[in-house]
């Protein structure tokens, strides 16, 4: 490890509940609901109509901008509705509803690349784009954009296998059960970016996976090295992972490409391999279903668009005292208001909490202990930012670099006064962005006025 990042926390990783359970294939549900936004960027435009028959893997949503990614049917069947449905981001989102015909008829467009070893960078990027691959670790940034903006600048390619969120074991199981897909994907990335070695960064609570990878890499003589990192949250945060592996820090407001790094999650890497060697777009997701509310925690392979309720049914149901359903990990995941929301491309975990994991206080009080600053991996001082946020002091918040906050939640986790720090910063960031947009619009209007 080159240079460990500052701060971080050591929550109980709770992975023992599922890290020895092989991935089970969840039978495709009777109906899938596929939202037209499963990525960061412009939502897709549905390219099928109600009543159409669609095949497995057929494109049903067209990308409408460069920063966007197409969406594919995850089962074969009939489109029964195209209407707003609950989305896991809390809103209602235009979704394509498909009734399963239980045939899983493959779309004719799905075929492996003819000469996978001779693909040019442009061809490979095109395959990635058409397969609808996005950052499957949770950020869902379209992968083809990341590749094309990084080509020529990147000297270090990193596969993010840190999986630092508690409970989540989906990447761990992928590494154990499909190492050839991950190593194959890494091989493609090495050729794409013309680097000698691709780094796989993995936390030392997954030593069995690291050993398996090392063994396979040696057997295949693959251009891949495994970097075993300390288990510390947020080791898997992009900027922190870059620092752990290269010792370089991404400059403020910048992307990893600025320091010559490109980071791909385990499942993204495997998805690139599947897109090239099987022609398969992103139509399924490995999901860890865990938490105190889940009767029988499991790792499930499910189709995109499967309602969460089907996942819980497959795990013995939920406890009656369940008070929170999360999509994603407990540190950065989103709480859901209904179990009807579908599995998306980024759904690496679905958690249900029945016991009091949150430990809130009716009167959150800052005692200035400074633990929030001790754990902040972005070198921020949440203790002061919080006071500014309470008083809406936007200039002070900006001067305190609140925009650098990656919302990892470490400060809030550690706070003995039980302050809602990240929540305050998220709100503050929105306000700053709104104010910036307004200022820009005013400036634009002024300029237009002068010209006119």
């Amino acid at each position, binding site marked *: 490890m080159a240079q460990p990042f500052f701060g971080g926390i050591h929550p109980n990783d709770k992975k023992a509940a599922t890290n020895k359970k092989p991935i089970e294939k969840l039978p495709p549900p009777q109906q899938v609901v596929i939202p037209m936004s499963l990525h960061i960027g412009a939502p897709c435009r549905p390219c099928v109509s109600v009543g159409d028959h669609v095949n497995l893997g057929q494109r049903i949503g067209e990308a409408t901008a460069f920063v966007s990614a197409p969406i594919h049917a995850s089962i074969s069947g009939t489109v029964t509705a195209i209407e707003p449905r609950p989305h896991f981001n809390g809103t209602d989102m235009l979704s394509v509803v498909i009734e399963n015909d239980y045939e899983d008829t493959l779309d004719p467009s799905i075929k492996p690349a003819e000469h996978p070893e001779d693909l040019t960078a442009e061809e490979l990027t095109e395959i990635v784009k058409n397969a609808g691959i996005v950052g499957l670790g949770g950020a869902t940034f379209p992968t083809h954009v990341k590749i094309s903006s990084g080509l020529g600048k990147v000297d270090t390619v990193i596969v993010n296998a840190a999986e630092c969120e508690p409970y989540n074991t989906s990447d761990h199981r992928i590494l154990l059960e499909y190492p050839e897909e991950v190593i194959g994907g890494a091989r493609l990335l090495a050729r794409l970016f013309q680097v000698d070695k691709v780094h796989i960064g993995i936390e030392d609570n997954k030593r069995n996976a690291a050993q398996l990878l090392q063994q396979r890499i040696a057997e295949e003589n693959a251009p891949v090295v495994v970097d075993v990192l300390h288990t510390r949250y947020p080791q898997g945060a992009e*900027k922190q992972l870059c620092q752990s592996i290269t010792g370089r820090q991404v400059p403020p407001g910048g992307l990893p490409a600025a320091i010559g790094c490109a980071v791909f999650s385990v499942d993204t890497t495997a998805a690139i391999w599947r897109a090239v060697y099987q022609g398969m777009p992103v139509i399924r997701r490995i999901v860890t279903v865990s938490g105190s509310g889940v009767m029988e925690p499991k790792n499930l392979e499910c189709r995109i668009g499967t309602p969460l309720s089907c996942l819980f049914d497959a795990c013995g149901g939920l406890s009656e005292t369940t008070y929170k359903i999360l999509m994603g990990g407990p*540190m950065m995941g989103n709480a*859901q*208001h209904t*179990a009807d929301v579908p599995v998306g491309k980024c759904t690496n975990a679905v958690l249900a909490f029945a016991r009091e994991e949150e430990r809130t206080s009716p009167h959150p009080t800052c005692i*200035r202990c400074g633990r929030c600053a001790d754990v902040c*991996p972005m070198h*921020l001082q949440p203790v002061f930012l919080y006071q500014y946020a309470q008083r809406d002091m936007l200039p002070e918040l900006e001067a305190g670099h609140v925009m650098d906050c990656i919302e990892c939640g470490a400060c*809030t986790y*550690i706070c003995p006064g039980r302050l809602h720090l990240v929540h305050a910063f998220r709100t503050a960031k929105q306000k700053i962005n709104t104010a910036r947009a307004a200022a820009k619009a005013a400036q634009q209007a002024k300029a237009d006025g002068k010209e006119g």
Partner: protein
Amino acid sequence: MTDYNDLKLRASSSPHIRAKDDTRSAMLDVMIALLPALAFAVFNFGLRALTLTAVSVAGAVAFEALYRLIMKKHQTVGDLSAAVTGMLVAFICPVTAPYWMILIGDFFAIVIVKQLYGGLGQNFVNPALAARAFLFSWATQMSTWAAPGTQAALFGAVDVTTQATPMSYLSTNSLADLQAVYGLDDMFVGTIGGSLGEVSAVCLLLGFLYLLGRKVISWHIPVSFVGTVALLTFLFPRGNDPLTWMLYNVLGGGLLLGAIFMATDYVTSPISRRNRIIYGVGCGLITVFIRYFGSYSEGVCYSILCMNLCVWLLDKYLKPRRFGAARKPLFRRKEAEEK
């Protein structure tokens, strides 16, 4: 099987898990860390050490409860910070101090210093130390030092054998006389005169290790504080035995109690680790300065109070380096915004 639509779901924002330790547990840990020193005080000065501490804790808690009640604010005695203040007020007074005086100290610490400024987290000087500074209005009572091994009477007029403390010997430059009265072993174990809770170095160090182990405090302030005092007294000894002079200075007076339990007070110490070290060094400098040049033999209390007042300055002007930004010179008022 549960119908998922019947669940009452909470949709709060992330993170969804919290560490176990809260304010109350941290304060409880501080009280636990103070127990060895309290036990030794009972051994050294008699049962009055215990009753005095108990009265002080009860007084501090009662004043806080009453204030919150009268002002119609939510009750805060459960966070135990008032109890810690009560313990510390007793610890920094002589065992012979009358009960009424301790209660005045509690009132000053809790109501004037802490609650009037908004309660926990808002005061800008350490309540217990401010109370000690205030209690020096009764200078005689605050400097009547019982000899070690006395059994101070529980009630009524306290009539005990008095004896000069190590600090009064040191301030008159009579190291040889001090060595004749108290050996270094006495200094380390605590069979010496002094304030109720400050005498036993070994018990205070036990408390320090406990707090470090429980991650309640970090090493930065105690180590830089004591280290500065040790270095300065070693470099500028009075007499020709720097090491002995240094050890008596480190083990004597309220240095360890102050460095471990008072200077580390969350509310009145800096946030960043670097600033904590600067703060500790500042405390050490002022302590030695007062001990060497002041007319008062002890400097810990006032050094911490002075540095409490500088915390704002340190926090405001010595910010941590921004992630990904180039290293920059120590002092600069405002960073150029690159936008």
